[in-house]
């Protein structure tokens, strides 16, 4: 697949072949260490330690983190290539297991917030640990009463000497059962304030959330903070920038990662549909010879292709730190998360009853796909944002 992007005042053809080696490598890794465990991860609602160890050993947790603090070196100093490779990694993980992609995603979300807005001391301390995977991170924004309107968080940061006391409840925290560290949003007298909260913080309690519709390996949890003492160096950035800059940086990264993850999950659906429609025979012919099945296949292929290109475009903008990168990323997540639901729907339809049963992964794919339109900004919240970008650009 070819993708054209403007470079300076000329046009350069960035061909996927440039990334073929990395893509083959990362897909092979995901196929070997993640995919064989995807069904069990879904069934048992937990990601085994050996999967995390394999990802850490392969350096996946270091991707996107600054090289000077132990992150992955940018691809030959080319930030666009680094952003694309980061996306291809999430695509490969999304195809292998949406749950595992989620674990790596929230780690990268928290890591990107610390890497972008942490003090030098915070970066020196945390980034090497995050990059190696010795410390797994997650992001804690949502609460029992707070979803899309993150500005209304009720978790409270009260001044206590030179530091803070944190009290409140967080809910639907991906990897809340397992993460060692949380980038957590609270409200303070000065406005929203973010914190770096280690799991071992006295007063921090966890309650697992099981039985989710999809992405059951997210290992979600509720967090209860009961007067958790936070030293000043655990505040990330300052108030009132906790939401608008610190957490928003994490969410922006999460949208990019998730968009690629959706492309991966959709590709898994399409591969399954190809395989099944070639071998399943009805009325004396393989399903692949029926034109209504071909229509679904063509729709899926085109949808995935389009989403892939939107993700590439977002990666290009992010690598170049363009002002439009946030818009491109938002659009990529918006499109890809809906795309994967259409694709999962068609792939399951092709599988018929078999797609609904335990012998094929389609029912898991369809359940996992449904989650994608809700997390990291619901489809409707993203529609508001995209329209706002549109009006801005129309004015200019």
């Amino acid at each position, binding site marked *: 697949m070819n993708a054209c992007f403007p470079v300076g005042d000329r046009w350069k053809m960035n061909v996927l072949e440039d990334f073929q080696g990395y893509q083959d490598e990362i897909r092979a890794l995901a196929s070997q260490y993640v995919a064989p465990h995807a069904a069990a991860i879904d069934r048992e609602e937990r990601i085994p330690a050996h999967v995390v160890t394999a990802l850490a050993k392969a350096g996946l947790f270091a991707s996107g983190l600054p090289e000077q603090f132990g992150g992955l070196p940018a691809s030959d100093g080319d930030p666009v290539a680094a952003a694309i490779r980061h996306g291809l990694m999430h695509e490969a993980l999304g195809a292998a297991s949406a749950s595992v992609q989620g674990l790596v995603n929230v780690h990268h979300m928290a890591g990107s917030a610390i890497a972008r*807005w942490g003090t030098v001391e915070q970066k020196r301390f945390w980034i090497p640990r995050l990059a190696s995977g010795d410390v797994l991170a997650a992001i804690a924004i949502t609460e029992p009463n707070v979803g899309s309107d*993150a*500005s209304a968080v009720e978790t409270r940061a009260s001044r206590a000497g030179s530091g803070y006391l944190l009290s409140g409840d967080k809910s639907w925290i991906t990897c809340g059962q397992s993460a060692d560290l949380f980038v957590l949003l609270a409200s303070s007298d000065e406005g929203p304030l973010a914190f770096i909260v280690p799991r071992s913080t006295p007063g921090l309690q966890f309650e697992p959330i099981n039985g989710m519709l999809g992405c059951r390996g997210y290992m979600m949890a509720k967090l209860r903070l009961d007067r958790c003492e936070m030293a000043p160096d655990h505040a990330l950035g300052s108030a009132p920038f906790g*939401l608008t800059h610190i957490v928003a940086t994490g969410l922006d990264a999460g949208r990019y990662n998730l968009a690629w993850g959706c492309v991966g999950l959709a590709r898994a659906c399409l591969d399954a549909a190809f395989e099944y429609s070639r071998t399943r025979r009805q009325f004396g012919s393989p399903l692949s010879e029926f034109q209504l099945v071909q229509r679904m296949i063509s729709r899926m292929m085109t949808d995935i292709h389009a989403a892939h290109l939107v993700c590439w475009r977002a990666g290009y903008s992010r690598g170049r*730190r*363009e*002002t439009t990168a946030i818009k491109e990323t938002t659009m990529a997540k918006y499109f890809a998360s809906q795309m994967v639901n259409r694709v999962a729907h068609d792939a399951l339809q092709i599988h018929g009853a078999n797609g609904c049963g335990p012998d094929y992964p389609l029912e898991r794919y369809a359940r996992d796909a449904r989650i994608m339109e809700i997390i990291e900004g619901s489809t409707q919240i993203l529609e508001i944002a995209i329209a706002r970008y549109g*009006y801005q650009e129309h004015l200019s």
Partner: protein
Amino acid sequence: MLDAGLTSRIAAFISRSFEGRIVAPDDDIFALGFANSLFAMQLVAFVEKEFRIDIDSEDLEMDNFRSVNALSALVERKLSATAER
């Protein structure tokens, strides 16, 4: 005295983000009711790209972002610090 060209570029960006509303140099842009997290991130991305500077955690002070003039002063400080290096 702030660089008028620099100030007008920042004002133009903010005006576009605020549905074309004219923003006076000392208006509190966060009190106007248009600012949200997406705008805030775009604003950082804009000044970084437009003026080739890096906004760091120590720059995250309300007094640096409150108005067009405040932001212009921050950009000028960053530019002169870069020039001195």
